[in-house]
């Protein structure tokens, strides 16, 4: 991150499309909205679930989203902060 606040008055990542990796084998890609009450709210979300089987690898899913966009499966998801291992900008994925 550059320190630039995209939407003044909001969290630095507000409005940015992010990759949210978790310790429960699910990866969420969507627009970061807010962080409150120990959870992150993300909008227009695609999900990669390693437990679902039959999917592409997590890395391939992320790369495909970076190239072709995010297939939206959920309008709004709330992910507990304690489950999150990493948040990165999708725009930073080559």
């Amino acid at each position, binding site marked *: 991150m550059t320190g630039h606040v995209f939407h003044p008055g909001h969290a630095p990542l507000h409005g940015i499309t992010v990759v949210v990796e978790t310790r429960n084998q699910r990866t969420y890609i969507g627009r970061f909205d807010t962080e409150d009450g120990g959870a992150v709210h993300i909008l227009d979300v695609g999900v990669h679930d390693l437990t679902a089987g039959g999917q592409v690898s997590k890395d391939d899913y992320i790369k495909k989203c970076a190239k*072709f966009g995010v297939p939206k499966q959920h309008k709004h998801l709330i992910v507990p902060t304690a489950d999150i291992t990493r948040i990165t900008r*999708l725009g930073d994925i080559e």
Partner: protein
Amino acid sequence: MPYNSTLVAPMRAELTRLGVKELTNAAEVDAALGDQRGSMLVFVNSVCGCAAGNARPALTLALQHSVLPQQVVTVFAGQDVEATARARQYFGEYQPSSPSMALLRDGEVVQFIHRHQIEGRSPQAIAADLTAAFDRFYAASV
């Protein structure tokens, strides 16, 4: 629900004053993109801040480049809903996002700039991506 047309008018004018052609219904989209030949940029406009602060200024800068698409058209997501949905049918497996920009050549998307490649970036950086794509894909066709 679409925004008040008066509020949106300046967002449209920011593009049309550059010579960008607005497509406001499915028939206009089909006329422009159906059996499309040559080079074309489709700008998916939006009311959001990254359209105002990043995407539209980036297009303004990019259209000053020496190599340009033969046609530049726009649909307005959330406003001209039918036109936007129809335009997206021409984008193949690229997922909907707005603002975004599709670069086409002979009916095929050769590069797509998604919202996530626009948000938080400077107009100059986005314009550099656009002009690099113009050089790469359109230099021989103009």
